[in-house]
């Protein structure tokens, strides 16, 4: 019964208030209680009852919010951010056996190829430290001095759904809390009229794995990600039913509150006051969520920055703008999914045509988000993460056209804001881009680092489940990437 725990935590004020009533005799009447409660500041009553109330951190945080731009499907680092001229020279040759001995790959049985594939994209150096970036990401190239680029990310799983889950939850096992759930569980939310963890989606289909990617696992559903939808109600069941007026809706909420208060006095069950607050927040959400989605007050200049042509149209660009608006409102964890990066070389997923297309969809908005957060003074408090569940192999895959297979030993992600080092490249891969030669960075290290910046110790943020102290970083060691900070 987690509620007992919450009750215990919130006993403070409530307890004294209740004590007061009981000494006066419960017969003092619901009216008195109701007016007293109503007279209280909303923040106070919320702080007591709301499981999403802000909570103290383990140590001083560097950042408050996270925006995770999830490139679902596994973007090819070799075409974008990990420049490998030697790989191009060896194009078409078999990969030396020493690289692949004992390794396992997806689709091992059928389409796996061992011939190296050099990238055809031209690369140039950008920024103060001359970071190599290809022509696929011209806008990202312009903000390179804001970024920590990590070229040596490593994960454990090579199939989409489990690997996505691994990136989100630190395990491939379905039914564990995702990072957003962990973070809102650990920190609460600073937003009183929107969920603490919000998910936005774009691209031709939903990400593989679906709702478990933002699930709360064994944590209460309070902490699960709430998808904001681009069509219909932004939040499920947000709109008042069509046959009900706003006035009638308010009447329902008021009458429910009054009757619930009477029951609270009658039974003394504090859970009822939590419910009263939940109804108030629900009512506020009914106006705050549409207000969030309404971008008509954003300037043309801002829309142009993101490359939003039609503000009414659902797109990754619009979702990036919404992410900034969510951070402004104090939403703790925002995750954007954009599909489909699974460029195996099939008829709709090759490196020649489809990769450049999807890069155009995400490049400008991602860079714009970082710039926009900077100019609004929000970047220092917000960690922006860009990356997918894994990368792609230095070996080519030839189906109908050219692509690459899933690769888990070294792939590239970038981080901005939230105390990450500006203009810094973390880790280098070998000349073929197969594995790390310095600073190997496991998904666990990424998780530990993000938590660390938020003021949370990855070893202490845990819950007991089936005898295990379940953590985002699991049971194996995780290391905060200190060099990439500050």
């Amino acid at each position, binding site marked *: 019964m*987690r509620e007992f725990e919450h009750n215990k935590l919130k006993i403070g004020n409530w307890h004294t208030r209740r004590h007061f009533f009981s000494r006066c005799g419960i017969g003092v009447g619901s009216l008195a209680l109701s007016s007293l409660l109503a007279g209280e500041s909303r923040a106070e009553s919320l702080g007591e009852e709301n499981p999403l109330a802000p909570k103290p951190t383990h140590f001083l945080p560097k950042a408050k919010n996270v925006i995770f731009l999830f490139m679902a499907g596994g973007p090819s680092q070799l075409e974008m951010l990990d420049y490998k001229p030697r790989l191009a020279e060896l194009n078409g040759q078999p990969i030396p056996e020493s690289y692949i001995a004992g390794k396992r790959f997806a689709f091992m049985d059928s389409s796996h190829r061992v011939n190296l594939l050099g990238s055809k994209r031209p690369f140039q150096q950008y920024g103060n430290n001359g970071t190599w970036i290809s022509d696929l990401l011209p806008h990202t190239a312009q903000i390179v001095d804001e970024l920590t680029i990590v070229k040596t990310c490593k994960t454990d799983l090579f199939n989409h759904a*489990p690997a996505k889950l691994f990136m989100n939850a630190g395990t491939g096992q379905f039914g564990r809390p995702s990072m957003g759930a962990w973070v809102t569980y650990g920190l609460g939310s600073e937003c009183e009229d929107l969920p603490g963890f919000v998910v936005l989606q774009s691209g031709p289909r939903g990400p593989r794995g679906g*709702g478990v990617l933002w699930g709360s696992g064994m944590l209460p*559903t309070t902490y699960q990600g709430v998808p904001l939808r681009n069509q219909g109600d932004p*939040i499920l069941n947000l709109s008042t039913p069509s046959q009900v007026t706003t006035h009638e809706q308010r009447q329902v909420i008021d009458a429910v509150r009054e009757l619930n208060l009477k029951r609270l006095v009658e039974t003394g069950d504090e859970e009822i006051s939590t419910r009263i607050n*939940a109804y108030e927040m629900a*009512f506020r959400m009914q106006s705050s969520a549409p207000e969030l989605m309404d971008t008509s007050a954003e300037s043309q200049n801002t829309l142009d920055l993101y490359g939003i042509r039609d503000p009414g149209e659902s797109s990754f660009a619009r979702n990036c703008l919404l992410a900034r608006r969510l951070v402004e409102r104090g939403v703790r964890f925002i995750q954007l999914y954009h599909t489909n990066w699974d460029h195996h070389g099939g008829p709709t997923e090759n490196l020649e045509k489809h990769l450049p297309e999807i890069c155009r969809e995400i490049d400008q908005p991602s860079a714009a988000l970082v710039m926009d957060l900077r100019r609004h003074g929000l970047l220092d408090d917000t960690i922006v993460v860009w990356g997918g569940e894994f990368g792609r192999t230095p070996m080519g895959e030839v189906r109908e056209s050219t692509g690459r297979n899933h690769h888990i030993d070294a792939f590239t992600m970038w981080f901005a804001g939230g105390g990450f080092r500006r203009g810094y490249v973390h880790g280098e891969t070998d000349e073929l881009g197969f594995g790390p030669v310095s600073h190997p960075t496991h998904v666990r290290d990424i998780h530990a680092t993000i938590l660390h910046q938020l003021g949370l110790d990855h070893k202490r*943020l845990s819950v007991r489940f089936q005898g295990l102290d379940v953590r985002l970083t699991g049971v194996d060691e995780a290391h905060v990437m200190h060099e990439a900070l500050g």
Partner: protein
Amino acid sequence: MPRRLTLRPYVQRGSSKRLRLLPRCLQITISACILLGCGVQLAVAQQTGDEASSAADVSFNRDVLPILSANCYACHGFDEEARQADLRLDSAAGAAAGSDLGEPILVAGDPDASLLIKRVEATDDDIMPPMETGKSLSKEQQEILRRWVAQGGKYEKHWSFEPPQPPPVPEVVDIHGQPVTHPIDRFIQAKLKSQELAPSPIANDTTLLRRVSLDLTGLPPTLAEIDHYLAAAAIDREAAYREAVESLLNSPHYGERWGRWWLDQARYADSNGYSIDAPRQIWKFRDWVIDALNADMPFDQFTIEQLAGDLLPQATQSQRVATGFHRNTQINQEGGIDKEQFRIDSVFDRVATTGTVWLGLTVGCCQCHDHKFDPIQQREYYQLFAFFNNQDEPTLKVYGDSVSGEELRSELKGAYAALDQYIQDHLAEYEAWESKLTDAEVKKLADSAQKGLSMTRDKRSSEQMRELFAIEVGKISSDFQTLLQRAEELDNQVNGAATTLVMAERAQPRSTTVFIKGDFTRPAEEVQPGTPSVLHPLQADGELPNRLDLARWIVSADNPLTARVIVNRVWQVYFGRGIVETENDFGSLGVPPSHPQLLDWLALDFQEQQWSLKSLHRLIVTSHTYRQSSQVREDLRRIDPNNYLLGRQQRLRLDAELIRDVALSASGLLESQLGGPPVFPPIPDGVMGQGQVKRAWKVSVGADRYRRGLYTFVYRATPPPSLNVFDAPDGFSTCTRRSRSNTPLQALTLLNDSAFVEFASALQQRIEHEGIEAAFRRCTGRVPSDDELQILAGLDIKTAARVLLNLDETLTRE
């Protein structure tokens, strides 16, 4: 004979300590010791510590073990590989053997000479546990260890591994000086009395009837049932209550309500999970559970049929269906996967689920290493694994109860043979017809018929011949028609029958090895099926023990765990918390029972009553402890704010499915048909698009739109939002306790979800016919007060109906 129990005055200290701890508790919120969510446990270590802090005698199991296991065993425990300084503190022998540091670890009676005490009390870098573990002992915990050593430093076997002993039932008198007779009340009230607390009075009639109806059947009482009960209670309250309990236990809805309790543990859902999440058919298993519970199948048999029904001699269809329990694992259909990896994953899940559900042990921990806290080795884990590593996973066609599938199939074969014979006998007529066919006529025939005609006769299949024959020659023969009809009927029965997923033992066993760190690509030594040596020995029928032997071992009278675990898990439904609060961990990291003797008494009684769950339910709901009011009392709030002592009942928000059921029932829409394929009530648009593969959700029409929540089709990847938002489990792993969250999204669901809007307009019509008071009673069971009526009277009827369905009381079992 009156018997004095040595009871710990723990609540008083617990509560005062809790106040002191409050600021720390806030910190602790984000560390391990918080209870959250399904199956997540509340490690009330501080509470256990409190209990002892002033008790004269320190008990190893109660006071010391929780401290050692949570803080020391990870490095000084059972797990050899993780062991530091060559020291183990999990056994007397280990502590006596000392460490590689030489200095004696534990000197009985002399804490100052014991390195254990020096190190935990150290103020420098020597402190144990070391800083970098993030663990530390409170002053109180240090004090407990000191006193334990001073009192002799004796170890005890962990309580749950000792068989339950028949405890003396305390003698207690009630406030009128009358002896308390119900055994549960005697245990509960003895402990309350030791705190100078009295139980609460019995709840009023309507509250009690609604409570017991919801608890036993998941449905609120109808107006007629309430009226009947009130009239009967006016004459003889006790008789009326007992009559109500019997009638509820005999209701078929009992099986639905408690079936869902079991389905949570079975991780039941209607899809394959992972990313593809295709639908599957396994609802016959769900119906099996409902039927078995309604028939009060003894729990030991219930266990054996689910774990090994296929291995029983002359296994019936029903016993095979029961083995669906362990087919509720996910199946990964993603491209490019290594199938063996996911088969192994499902076996891991079966081992962990079996351990959690029946043994209350966290055996899953040993997948990667020896258990750090409980005496189970990794090798023993893989011995358990071996029982589940030897199955094929077939799909079973399920025929009607009185029909044998085999007979049906052979009859069908016979019917086709008869048809074919008839065709043989009338070939001349047929050939005459075929030879006269014109091209134009052929073109008008079905594609399949045209294809048949294009082949020479000897190339045609019997199926094709039947089709061609039926076009004209057979059509005018009533004999042929009769044969055809019979064949089609049988075909339909055989091929249209529902299927369900079951287990079947392989003839050739797979070999099982230990996997290093649980990684299936790293096999180590080979193992044979076996059970953990800390528990009772396994008896096997054959040479190699199989699942049937395992199932019998689990429900053996020698097993100290199963009966305790199950009675505890039933108890928690009635009181919101188990006697062992960590209902899925009876191991050394779990919380010791709040009423250990009651737990043992219940476990032994359960077995004496032939494992009858209905007897257990009857026993609990007829106790005063169950029937008392849930109203919070000032003295209880002060002394036992979290109601560990059960001086009152507990208001509990209803489970997700029951919230739907109550609304359906109050609004008069409920369709109470039992069992059958899952249904598709309306859900908000766009929900199914959240998964990787967009699944269809064709809204059920007619009665199926209004079935109970447990019949709603559950896709694991895109669960029905109105169930999900009220904490219905996801079916990814076993759920032995649901969380009860209380959120704005729940409010939005009840206010705005189209299903609830529909329920509200049905309730509105009821109000129009029978008035607001009756509708209030349908929702809450009780008559509204004048104040309440006044509030409702100020609203229009539509609004009033919506208000009633949104009341906290409507959603709550009081």
